């Protein structure tokens, strides 16, 4: 049996089920308790599991993210929630210098079962400080894992894996993706990290799409199909660990690669993916790889200007057409 639910609901279900399953799971953050998070992601947790495990914090990201670490190394499985991922800059020392390194620095003696959840992504006029996606920053830091689901099935299964694991996870949800719907089985499941999904098969161009760009790439691919161009769309789901095998396999079939992410292009995760493919599989490529990403400016407020910055279906389509010498 299965149902159709939203990503928002999938995250909420994963939290409820993990709280039920393991009494050492707790959550901390601004507005996670009584308010149930502005998107309703944590709704019902406070009522069901109580103030001990569902903690409304003061606006003190450095303190509560650091407290997640202290709790993680002494017997709990904390989830820290940052209201908008842009504010992850505030607890940055705790994440980069403490959470990522404590196991290694101490000679491997501590488990760090800890998840930091935060909404990423642009659109809707939220401007420069509420629109960013920082997956490249955290993928750069050894010791962290970075997860970016964009279907309800993945959001639930990957969040469960994140909560049950013994290593720290940055779990980035796209805020424009919370209402995306998808099939949800009734039975229990988890999804291992480091396994990409081929969302659409195709023989002409491989498009590796991060987070919400998966849906934009799929829409572009449908349209391109009417031109007789078949794109293969890959959703890596986890940024680190990253499933390069699925990408190589696809590129060895299509011999063309586009990587697309919403974060701005400069030093983005696209550069790393292209570099890996070039370094390990240059001979498979018939065309130079192209990155379709956000422009290198802070997100402007004005709708027209904002639309210029965010990569969309049309940009992907034009890039594919150019690559296929159709323009």
């Amino acid at each position, binding site marked *: 049996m299965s149902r159709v639910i939203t990503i928002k609901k999938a995250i909420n279900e994963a939290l409820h089920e993990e709280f039920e399953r393991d009494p050492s799971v707790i959550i901390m953050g601004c507005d996670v308790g009584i308010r149930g998070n502005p998107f309703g992601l944590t709704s019902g947790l406070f009522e069901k599991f109580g103030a001990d495990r569902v903690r409304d914090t003061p606006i003190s990201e450095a*303190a509560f993210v650091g407290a997640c670490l202290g709790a993680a190394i002494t017997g709990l499985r904390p989830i820290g929630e940052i209201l908008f991922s842009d504010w992850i800059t505030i607890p940055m020392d*705790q994440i980069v210098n403490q959470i990522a390194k404590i196991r290694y620095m101490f000679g491997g003696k501590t*488990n760090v079962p800890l998840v930091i959840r935060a909404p990423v992504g642009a659109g809707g006029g939220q401007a420069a400080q509420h629109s960013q996606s920082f997956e490249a920053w955290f993928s750069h830091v050894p010791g962290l894992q970075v997860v970016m689901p964009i279907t309800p099935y993945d959001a639930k299964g990957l969040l469960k894996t994140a909560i049950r694991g013994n290593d720290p996870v940055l779990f980035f949800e796209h805020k424009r993706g919370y209402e995306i719907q998808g099939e949800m089985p009734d039975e229990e499941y988890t999804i291992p*990290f480091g396994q990409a999904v081929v969302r659409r098969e195709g023989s002409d161009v491989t498009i590796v799409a991060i987070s919400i760009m998966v849906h934009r790439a799929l829409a572009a691919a449908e349209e391109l199909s009417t031109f007789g161009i078949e794109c293969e769309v890959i959703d890596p789901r986890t940024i680190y660990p990253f499933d390069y095998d699925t990408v190589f396999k696809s590129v060895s079939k299509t011999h063309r690669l586009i990587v697309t992410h919403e974060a701005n292009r400069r030093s983005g995760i696209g550069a790393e993916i292209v570099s890996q493919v070039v370094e390990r599989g240059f001979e498979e490529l018939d065309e130079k790889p192209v990155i379709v990403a956000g422009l290198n400016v802070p997100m402007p407020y004005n709708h027209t200007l904002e639309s210029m910055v965010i990569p969309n279906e049309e940009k992907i389509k034009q890039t594919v057409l150019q690559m296929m010498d159709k323009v």
Partner: protein
Amino acid sequence: MPISTISMDESLAMLKQFKKEVMNELKAPADLSRDQVLEIYRKMALIREFDTNVKTLWKQNFIYGLAHSYLGAEAVAVGACAALKKGDYITSTHRGHGHVIAMGGDVNKMMSELMGKADGYCRGKGGSMHIASVDDGMLGATGIVGSGMPIAVGSALSAQVLKKDNVTICFHGDGGTNQGVWHESINLAAAWKLPVIFLCENNQWAISLNYAKATGNPVVADRAVGYGIPGLTIDGFNPFAVYGAVRDAVARARKGDGPSLIEARYYRYIGHFVADDERYRDTSTNNPWREEMDPIKRIQEYLISSSTASTEEVERIYSSAKKEVDAAIKHAKKAPEPSADTLWDGLYSPEFMKKYGGD
């Protein structure tokens, strides 16, 4: 004469004020047995000997990177940790050698870690600045000033959520008190009534900046008022004063009455770290704080004058600490280097490494 952030006259005036307002005479509290008192002295001696050797070993290239001395602070860690029981935790600072010893750590593993050896506490991955003896409840030294504050809040939170009566002592320095996370952490612990004792080791120096020049009110404990928790300034050269204050704060925390802020004032004896030439302070005369307040000298005098131990016993305990450190140095010098294939070990959990590798 180099430029000094405070003059010798100012330092002497501060010492005079310390003697008048903070210092108190050593007297072992009635709840400590003779054995416990002697154990406090033994651990203090062990720290003194350990850190006396560190700079020399660093100069001789046996210790490779950064190392920060606990000299002068022996009474703080040892006095405080004497008030703990098994299952309690501490978080540390970059000046962590004393904390490991106070929690009952093994000096062989410590010295091996400082020399980067495979059998060190962190298998040569951490060194002095990240030394940790997690099994003893010592949750690790850290190289970022103030960063242990929220970690201690988290370990206290574990005790609260898991309904255990364990407490956490959060050691930090005066330098850490001016980091934003210091305030956030104490506020959070106070709001949630967490079983944590914020123990400020006020050595009066944040590298080159004297605390009097770092804040509008150089009494750390006064800040407790702002968070609605008890605050106390104590003689950091006096292990029994530290013990008494921490014992009371621990009792309060175990009862569920929340955190306390204790400022143990002492004086940083030597440079900030092994290679610090101290050009920013007057070192032209013997440091009066060290001359007059030395915690080892004071406890030795107390043990003899109170007839807790004979002169011979006091000397014997000290020389056995010295021998233990000498043996640790010999041990560490001979201990094996970590092999290249351990480079990635501990980056992620063993199950992760097996599945994905670390790269």
